[in-house]
């Protein structure tokens, strides 16, 4: 019997071309995703006079810098952003790779588009010049973010050098209570292991609570792996995965489908496979979660209170906590549900797929937003689907703004910003200082919780609105 292998081991070994004498592996990149922010990497490639080696394995879509008011290129106000988006278009034409451009119905946030198109598949090694590439692991791919120089390396060679990461298994036991979403599960995981707790590791999420999740929920979980510092996050493919992929544009079909599924079934970690670290969490003990600080590890159940620096040892984070509360404009001991909210953002690659919008709409239809609230679907196809289901009407009637798809207020590069000192309930993945605009204060939460905050103008336990039944 050979040694039991983890799913990570199998995918890594399947893509390993060679190893150097220092133990670095040259890996084959099965899919390279690009976006408007990949522009520097294309410039580096030009400077070297190199072609894109595998345009057939390169797929791109503009997302970071585009307007969510309109998808007309002329409507991008910032000349720098416009240059970058037109640059992506020009590069696609010149190098001959596939572009889901601004005018393409398949455009969207790159991490929403990959799975939606069936480009993301089990067993593939995927990279993208964006840290949330970890999202794609939800379908059983090994996917990680890289920097511009590495993107240039991938464009030129279709390979990437990596040191073999360690492995961590996060097992989520139990059944999620009502109103506890995938977002709450991953926030709880990050709170447990810390913002850098999985550094140097690839995390495999396992256990009954993960198996019970839809693919869209799994995408939310894997998306935020990077917020725990992980190199990548992944979930073993199963019937849920296959059902999600079947019939998608880039998924295999016919006899090819059978062959692919047979291979995908061989991917899950072998019984007895060893992980370098193990973490276990009980989903049934969770409540809806909210972040209060400037790191996603600063997470508490919505029933909690703002922590008190005086209860923390000096040198053990007291100063950091003070600075955080100062930046966030929060006082120790305040109940989270007493924190007022100035605006709401429902969007991003974490939580802007159709199931997320349905969950938010379910809450929105029960009232009216009392603060500015914006919904930006994760892709143009999600937008179309939501409109077909009438969700856009639900949001509009509840006073939410219904926008085009893009990264929008998750990072604010397109001008969708939270003003300094203002507090935003956001379904995105980062509550860093200034992430949503200089001086912005971000509270991360699930789509239903964000919609609830919009209706009440403060952080709200969504269970109050939806009832416990």
């Amino acid at each position: 019997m050979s040694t039991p292998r983890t799913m990570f081991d199998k995918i890594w070994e399947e893509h390993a071309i060679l190893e150097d004498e220092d133990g670095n592996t040259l890996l084959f990149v099965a899919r390279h995703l690009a976006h408007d922010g990949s522009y520097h990497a294309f410039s580096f490639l030009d400077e070297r006079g190199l072609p894109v080696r595998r345009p057939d394995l390169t797929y791109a879509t503009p997302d970071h810098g585009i307007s969510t008011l309109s998808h007309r290129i002329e409507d991008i106000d910032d000349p720098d952003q416009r240059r970058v988006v037109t640059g992506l278009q020009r590069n696609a034409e010149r190098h001959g790779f596939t572009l889901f451009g601004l005018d393409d119905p398949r455009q969207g946030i790159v991490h929403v588009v990959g799975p939606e198109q069936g480009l993301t598949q089990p067993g593939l090694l995927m990279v993208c010049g964006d840290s949330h590439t970890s999202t794609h692991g939800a379908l059983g791919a090994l996917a990680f973010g890289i920097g511009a120089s590495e993107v240039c390396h991938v464009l030129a060679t279709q390979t990437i050098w990596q040191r073999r990461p360690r492995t961590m298994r996060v097992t989520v036991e139990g059944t999620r209570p009502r109103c506890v979403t995938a977002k709450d599960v991953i926030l709880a995981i990050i709170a447990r292991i810390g913002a850098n707790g999985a550094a140097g590791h690839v995390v495999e999420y396992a256990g009954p609570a993960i198996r019970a999740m839809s693919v869209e929920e799994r995408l939310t979980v894997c998306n935020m792996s990077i917020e725990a510092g992980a190199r990548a996050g992944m979930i073993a493919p199963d019937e849920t995965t296959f059902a999600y992929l079947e019939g998608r544009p880039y998924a295999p079909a016919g006899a090819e489908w059978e062959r692919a599924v047979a291979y995908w079934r061989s991917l899950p970690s072998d019984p007895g496979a060893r992980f370098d670290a193990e973490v276990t969490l009980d989903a049934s003990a969770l409540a809806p979660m909210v972040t209060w600080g400037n790191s996603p590890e600063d997470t508490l159940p919505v029933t909690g209170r703002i922590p008190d620096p005086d209860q923390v040892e000096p040198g053990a984070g007291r100063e950091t906590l003070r600075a955080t509360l100062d930046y966030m404009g929060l006082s120790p001991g305040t109940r989270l549900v007493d924190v007022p909210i100035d605006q709401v953002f429902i969007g991003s690659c974490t939580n802007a797929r159709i199931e997320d919008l349905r969950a938010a709409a379910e809450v929105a239809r029960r009232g009216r937003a009392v603060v500015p609230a914006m919904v930006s679907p994760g892709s143009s196809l999600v937008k179309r689907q939501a409109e077909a289901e009438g969700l856009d009407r639900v949001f509009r009637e509840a006073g939410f703004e219904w926008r085009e798809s893009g990264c929008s207020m998750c990072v604010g590069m397109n001008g969708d910003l939270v003003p300094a000192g203002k507090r935003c309930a956001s379904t995105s993945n980062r509550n860093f200082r200034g992430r949503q605009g200089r001086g912005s204060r971000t509270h991360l939460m699930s789509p239903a919780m964000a919609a609830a905050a919009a209706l009440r103008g403060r952080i709200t336990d969504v269970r109050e609105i939806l009832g416990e039944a």
Partner: protein
Amino acid sequence: MERFTALTAIAAPIDQANIDTDQIAPARFLRRPRAEGYQDILFHDLRFTAPGVENPDFILNRAPFRQARILVADRNFGGGSSREQAVWALVDSGIRCVVAVSFGDIFYNNAVNHGLLLVRLDAELLRRLRQALHERPGSVISVDLRSQTLVAPDGTTYAFAIEAARKRRLLEGLDAIGLTLGHMAEIAAFEQGYQARKPWLTARPA
């Protein structure tokens, strides 16, 4: 790529943990061409209260620390976004070495492509080191990559670990793409086998 062998320079303490790349290089500055330089955006929103108006409290705005070429940080420096501009902002400002308890993985990988040395040391040791830098502003730290040692202002020498390949790339200023292009035959052979094992991957949308 610029090489890194050794450096003796003023070091600045960065006390906050979790200094993410959004803070090192805010999103709104990321689109300018690389050649235009990124030195003015380093820690922009911590360093400036308004465009061109410096925050006098920020450490790198204080006299001796302006000359700092080494940063001594805490845990999880450079976590978050993959933006390589964070590394560009540091090296363009003359910072060639960051010492921290831990780093964001992608930031760690990006640094080596621009000759930025990242050194990992123990949390308690770094706390004391930062304290010493506060107490004697302008103190100098020496790092020597060849011997993998760091000399603190009080003269104590600490050894640090670094992966062999990373060390060599920094010392020799080796370029990864050049290196890989030397392996094209192996890559091409691999691709053929890969394709044959997964014929379904060539499927195009109907």
